[in-house]
C-alpha cells in the first residue's frame, strides 16, 4: 500500500496552485468585501459594503437579468441537447463526422462566437439586410432588436449555440454507457415507447442532464465578455457591474466591487450545490 505521504506528495503541486492561488485570491476578496483593509487603516470588518450593494437597484437589476440569461440559456440548451442526443443516439452514416464537427465547435472562443452573432443578428447585420432585401423593413431600426436588447436574446442565442453541443456530447456519452438494454426490457414487458422513455431512460439521464445544466447556468451567470459585447446599456450583467465598480476612480467603491464578486460567487455556488443535491436525491449516477 502506498504511504499517505507519497499521495500527499503527488497532490502537492496541484494543491499548492489551486488552494494557494484560488484560496488566497478568494480569501482576499472576502476580506476586502468586509472592508478589512489594514493598509488604509480599516481594521474593523463590517458589512457596510454588502448593505450598500444589496440595496442598490442597479445591482439587483443586474442579478435578476443575469439569472434570466443563465436560466434561459441553460434551460433551452438542456431541452435542445436532450432532443438532439436522442436523435443522434443510434449510428448513422456520417455520425462520426458530425460528432467531430461538434467537438471542433467547442474550440471556438466565446468572444469570436459573440462577434459572429453580432454581425448576423444586429439591426444592421446580415439578417436585417435580408429582411430589407425582402421588403420586410425599410430601415435598420425597424428590424427587431436582437442584440444589445433588454431581453438578452443575442446573448442567450450565443450561449445556446455554444453550450448545446457540449451538453449533447455529455448526454451522448451517458446514453452510450446506459445502453439500449433497459428500454428493451421495458418494451418487452409491455411498455409503450413513451413509457420506456419517460419512466426508464429519462430518470437515468436526469443526473447528467442536471449537472450539465447547472454548469452552464453557473457559467452564464458569472460571464463577462459576452454580455459586455452583446448586452444593452442597462441592465448589465453582474460581472460587468462588479468590474466597473472595481476599476472606479473612487477607491471606496472597491469593497463594493468585492462584495458583488463574492455574491456572484455565492449565487453560482448555491446553484451548483442545489444541482448536486438534486442529483444525490435522484440516486446519483448508477453505473
Amino acid at each position, binding site marked *: 500500500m*502506498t504511504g*499517505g505521504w507519497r*499521495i500527499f506528495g*503527488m*497532490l502537492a*503541486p*496541484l*494543491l499548492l*496552485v*489551486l*488552494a494557494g*492561488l*484560488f484560496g*488566497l*485570491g*478568494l480569501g*482576499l*476578496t*472576502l476580506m476586502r468585501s468586509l472592508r478589512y483593509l489594514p493598509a488604509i487603516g480599516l481594521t474593523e470588518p463590517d458589512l457596510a459594503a454588502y448593505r450598500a450593494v444589496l440595496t442598490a437597484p442597479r445591482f439587483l437589476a443586474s442579478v435578476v437579468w443575469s439569472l434570466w440569461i443563465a436560466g434561459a440559456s441553460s434551460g433551452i440548451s438542456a431541452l435542445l441537447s436532450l432532443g438532439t442526443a436522442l436523435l443522434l443516439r443510434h449510428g448513422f452514416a456520417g455520425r462520426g463526422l458530425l460528432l467531430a464537427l461538434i*467537438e*471542433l465547435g*467547442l*474550440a*471556438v*472562443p*466565446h*468572444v*469570436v462566437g459573440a*462577434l*459572429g*452573432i453580432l*454581425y*448576423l443578428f444586429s439591426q*444592421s447585420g*446580415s439578417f*436585417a*439586410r435580408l429582411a*430589407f432585401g425582402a421588403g420586410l423593413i425599410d430601415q*435598420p431600426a425597424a428590424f427587431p432588436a436582437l442584440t444589445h436588447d433588454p431581453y438578452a436574446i443575442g446573448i442567450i442565442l450565443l450561449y445556446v449555440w455554444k453550450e448545446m453541443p457540449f451538453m449533447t456530447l455529455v448526454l451522448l456519452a451517458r446514453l452510450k454507457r446506459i445502453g439500449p438494454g433497459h428500454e428493451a426490457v421495458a418494451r418487452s414487458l409491455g411498455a409503450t415507447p413513451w413509457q420506456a422513455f419517460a419512466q426508464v431512460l429519462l430518470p437515468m439521464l436526469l443526473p447528467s442532464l442536471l449537472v450539465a445544466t447547472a*454548469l452552464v447556468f*453557473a*457559467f452564464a*451567470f*458569472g*460571464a*463577462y*465578455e459576452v454580455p459586455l*459585447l452583446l448586452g444593452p446599456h442597462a441592465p448589465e450583467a453582474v*460581472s460587468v457591474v*462588479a*468590474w466597473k465598480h*472595481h476599476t472606479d476612480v473612487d477607491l471606496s467603491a472597491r469593497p463594493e466591487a*468585492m462584495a458583488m*464578486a*463574492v455574491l*456572484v*460567487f455565492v449565487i*453560482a*455556488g448555491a446553484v*451548483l450545490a442545489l444541482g448536486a443535491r438534486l442529483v444525490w436525491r435522484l440516486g446519483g449516477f448508477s453505473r
Partner: protein
Amino acid sequence: MPLLILGIWSVAHGWRFPALVPGEVSFAAWSYVLSSASGVGASLGLTLSIAVATAVIATVISYPAGRALGRHRFPGRFAVLVLVLAPAVLPALAVALGLQGLFLRLGLTGTVSGVVLAHLIPALPYPTLVMTAAFAAFEPEFEHQARSLGARPLQVLAHVTLPAVAPALRVGAALAFLVSWSQYLLTLGIGAGKVQTLPLVLFTFATSGRNDLTGAVSLVHLLPALLVVGFTLALRMFHRVGGGRWSVPGVGG
C-alpha cells in the same frame, strides 16, 4: 454559421446596410492585421506562449495529481475533487479581484508569469479530471507485471504507463490550452493592461467599429484553437484506426 460571416467581413470594403454582399472585396484589413503595425502578430505570439506554458505546467501537475486521485481512495479525496472542480465551474471574478491584490504585493501584476499563474487556476481542473479518469481506468496490473519481468521503474514509466495515458495527457493539455487561450477577465485583471493577449486585442478592435479588422482578428484568434482541437481529434482517430498502441505488448489478454 457565425464564423463564416466573420470571414466575409474581414475581406469586405465599405460594406454598409443594406447591401447583402460586400460591394468590394479587399484584403486591406488582412494586410494591416498581419503587419507589425497592428500589434496582432505580437499578441498572437504572446498569447500562444502563455497558453502553451499554461498547458505544459497544468499537464505536468495533473499527472501525479490524477494518479493519486484516480488510483487511491484516501480520506479527503472528495474534498480535493471539489477543490479541483471549483475553479472551472465558479465565476473567476471573485478570485481575480483578490488575486490582483496579492499579485500586486508580490510584484506579479503586469507580468507574463503572473498571467500564466493566474491562467492555471481555471486551466488545472480539466487536465486533472481527465487524468483522474485515465488512471482510474488504467490497470495497475500492467505496471506490476512489467516490474516482475525485471523492468526498472523508469522503463515501466516510459513503456507501459505513459503510452497508456498519452491520449488523456493530450486531451488535458489541449483543454488547458483552450482555457488559457480564451481568457479575458483574468488577463485583464492580472495583466493590468500590459499583457495584451489576443482576446484583449480583439475586444479593442470589436469596440472600434471597424468590422473588417475585427473579422480578421477574430479569425486569427480562432485558428490556433481549431488547430489544437483538430490535431487532438485527428490523433485520436488515427489511434482508433489501428496506428497506435492500445495493447501493452507482452501482457496476455
